[in-house]
């Protein structure tokens, strides 16, 4: 009886005729619900254009996708197309495991690179070669609770705010509402455990974390050390911000949804939280909007970009199929799918412009994300310094909690990371670290110049 049932189940499972291997495209991507939904829509749309090709989606948690990719390559069963997290792309490029796309881009008349945001394309360009194409992205901007601002009678943030304006406004919100001595309402929070949150505040002060050639760590630059200490002092001195340890059990978005946090820095992906079914009642209680980050000596922001690449180990006869898929995702039809998901922005300019034009729906100033593109970059670090980078991040968590000062941590981090890079060069004199092609310092980027004359209204 048991054998019969087992055999029957096996027959049912495997009786479906398998798709021919040469017509199955394997795509490795995140297992997050929004990405899976987006992939289903990509599949449906791609099926219309290429009815003979079946897409097999290999999903894996986003923060470990590069591990999955690594082991699939080693096991000689690489996906044809893979999502890749930005910080790990240079290492895969360095190891020669990523297909360079320039020839594909040049020889395909249907592909139009100018239709995509150049800054997003730059993220996938290393050693003057394009290795990945971006399909969804978001800079970090300033989300704020308008209802709380109205209640405390504080003027809304504008793109002309500088850091002093931010702190001054944030301080006005911090209150102990129930008299137990613990503040329950705060003005501002930026998650200092994410490098894409603290790096803009360093860049806008003129600091850089590494030299352009990645040969030296510049954590000991005075602008960098001052920035880190400023970030810590937001919670320790000005009390405008809760300590990160306080938010180890609750996310900043949830604190904002509960009406007790006036401003956070986050990407456009935060919108997914605001519009979750379970948060519908909380949304009723406040109006939210978004603004570009405040500035200092220059404007700067960090953006997260989801990119697709072709592993170099993909079989040559399958690379054309992989390239066609890449082209589809960043093309008009694929970008419409991204727009429909309405979380990260489409990297196609025309599609993104339409995404942010939605009168009557929050956030009203959604355009701030597009306006931030020109002065956004991702925060990379050279992979030989991986261990010291993580150790410094661990030390920095003590800076945020007031147990250490930023300066000795930064100096120790700079020394450790520079030594790690030097050791790498010493052991591998024949190898050069990959260079981010368009490493343009923020004060030299084109785009909206620092507004000396203040705009009274946001764009």
């Amino acid at each position, binding site marked *: 009886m048991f054998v019969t049932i087992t055999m029957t189940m096996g027959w049912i499972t495997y009786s479906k005729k398998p798709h021919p291997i040469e017509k199955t495209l394997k795509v490795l991507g995140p297992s997050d619900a929004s990405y899976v939904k987006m992939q289903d829509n990509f599949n449906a749309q791609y099926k219309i254009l290429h009815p003979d090709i079946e897409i097999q989606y290999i999903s894996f948690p986003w923060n470990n996708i590069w591990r999955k990719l690594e082991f699939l390559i080693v096991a000689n069963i690489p996906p044809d197309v893979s999502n890749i997290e930005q910080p790990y792309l240079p290492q*895969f490029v360095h190891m020669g495991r990523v297909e360079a796309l320039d020839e594909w881009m040049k020889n395909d008349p249907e592909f139009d690179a100018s239709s995509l945001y150049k800054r997003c394309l730059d993220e996938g360009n290393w050693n003057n070669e394009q290795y990945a194409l971006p399909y969804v992205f978001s800079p970090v901007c300033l989300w704020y609770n308008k209802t709380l601002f109205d209640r405390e009678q504080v003027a809304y943030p504008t793109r002309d705010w500088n850091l002093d304006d931010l702190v001054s406004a944030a301080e006005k919100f911090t209150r102990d509402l129930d008299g137990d001595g613990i503040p329950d309402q705060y003005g501002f929070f930026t998650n200092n455990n994410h490098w894409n949150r603290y790096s803009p505040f360093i860049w806008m002060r003129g600091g850089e974390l590494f030299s352009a050639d990645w040969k030296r760590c510049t954590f000991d630059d005075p602008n960098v050390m001052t920035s880190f200490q400023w970030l810590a002092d937001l919670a320790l001195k000005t009390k405008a911000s809760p300590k990160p340890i306080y938010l180890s059990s609750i996310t900043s978005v949830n604190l904002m949804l509960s009406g007790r946090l006036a401003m956070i820095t986050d990407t456009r992906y935060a919108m997914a939280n605001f519009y979750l079914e379970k948060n519908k009642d909380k949304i009723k209680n406040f109006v939210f909007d978004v603004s570009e980050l405040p500035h200092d000596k220059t404007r700067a922001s960090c953006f997260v970009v989801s990119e697709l690449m072709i592993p170099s180990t993909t079989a040559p006869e399958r690379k054309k199929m992989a390239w066609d898929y890449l082209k589809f995702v960043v093309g008009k039809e694929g970008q419409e799918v991204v727009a429909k998901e309405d979380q990260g922005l489409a990297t196609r300019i025309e599609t993104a412009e339409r995404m942010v034009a939605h009168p009557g729906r929050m956030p009203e100033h959604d355009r701030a994300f597009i306006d931030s593109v020109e002065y956004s970059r991702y925060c990379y670090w050279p992979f030989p310094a*991986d261990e010291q980078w993580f150790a410094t991040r*661990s030390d920095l968590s*003590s800076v945020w909690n007031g147990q250490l000062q930023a300066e000795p941590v930064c100096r120790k981090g700079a020394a450790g990371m520079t030594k790690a890079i030097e050791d790498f060069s010493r052991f591998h004199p024949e190898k050069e670290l990959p260079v981010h092609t368009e490493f343009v310092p923020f004060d030299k980027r084109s785009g909206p110049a620092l507004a000396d004359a203040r705009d009274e209204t946001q764009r």
Partner: protein
Amino acid sequence: MKKYEESRWSGGRFREALAGYGFISGNFLGFLVFTSIPIVISLYLAFTEYHVLTPPKWVGMRNFKEILWCHYEDVPVMEKVKTADGNEFEQIKMKTVTNPDGTTAQAAETVRKLRPNDYNFWHYSYNTVFLMMGIPIGMALSLSMALIMNQKIRGITFWRTIFFLPSVTAGVAVYLLWTWIYNPEQGLLNLFLHHTLGYLGLFPEDHAKWPQWLGSANLAKPSLILMGLWIGAGGYNMILYLAALQGVDPQLYEAAMIDGATSWQKFVHVTWPLISPTTFFIVVMGIIGGFQGGFMQAYVMTEGGPQGSTTTLSYYIFNNAFTWFNMGKAAAIAWFLFLVVFVMTILNWRFGGKKVNY
């Protein structure tokens, strides 16, 4: 004699042996493929530079030198500074230097010191050994609980279940629970201490001075030990001690009582010697487990921080192998850890075994 030798392997005995080997072959093949072959390969990888995506490159003893050797280094001198509000912190001592062009500048004062090549390795080794301080405390607690659970009272089965529950609760759920408990501002522990010790003036009123627990480099490890005791005190060690206690002949206690022994004397001279095999087993397994432990707590609760204070050797091996593409170094650390555990186990058998009464 020859006939006897031939008959050893003839007919039934041979078939019996073949059947025996056949039955264990499945398990043995699994052990070979998934355990012993990977172990041998990892020994080879420990002498290579292997970044997974590129072929391993033989580098000899370099990985071991990197973790175990020392070098001279100019280290910045640190000085303690007090702020106006009474906080003390360390900062780098600066000195004025004169440049060749006659201008002056501030530079860090340094001193030449012998430093380990991999300071982090020794730091994490210290963390691993520190966390093992929970082993004797846990054993004492387990034994105490077993002594209590060994009573013949109504509902004892219920209490045994209750005490055993934390050890069978899913690890990640427990770690997330304790992350909440240890939250310095809103966590159960600080609020409890504030509402109890606070009234006696033994707990600070100022929230900024409340213990940071997992956020403090000094308190993070003791916090993990405390959590480990909560999970493990009523766990398998308690069950082992309970079984051992129930194996002690009650006549020995009667004889001791007749001789006028007190409870403590009964424990020291009867109970403790007779449960020594169990104690020895728990010590050996505890040390082996202790050296390999600390990974889940670091991965789920602290990411190894703050300041690397909760990173153990197992978490360090994981990070080297699967986060930093450094398989060769990870293998070297793993083999070093194996040697340490091997030596400790041998020492335990050699010296600890003498104390065991059978």
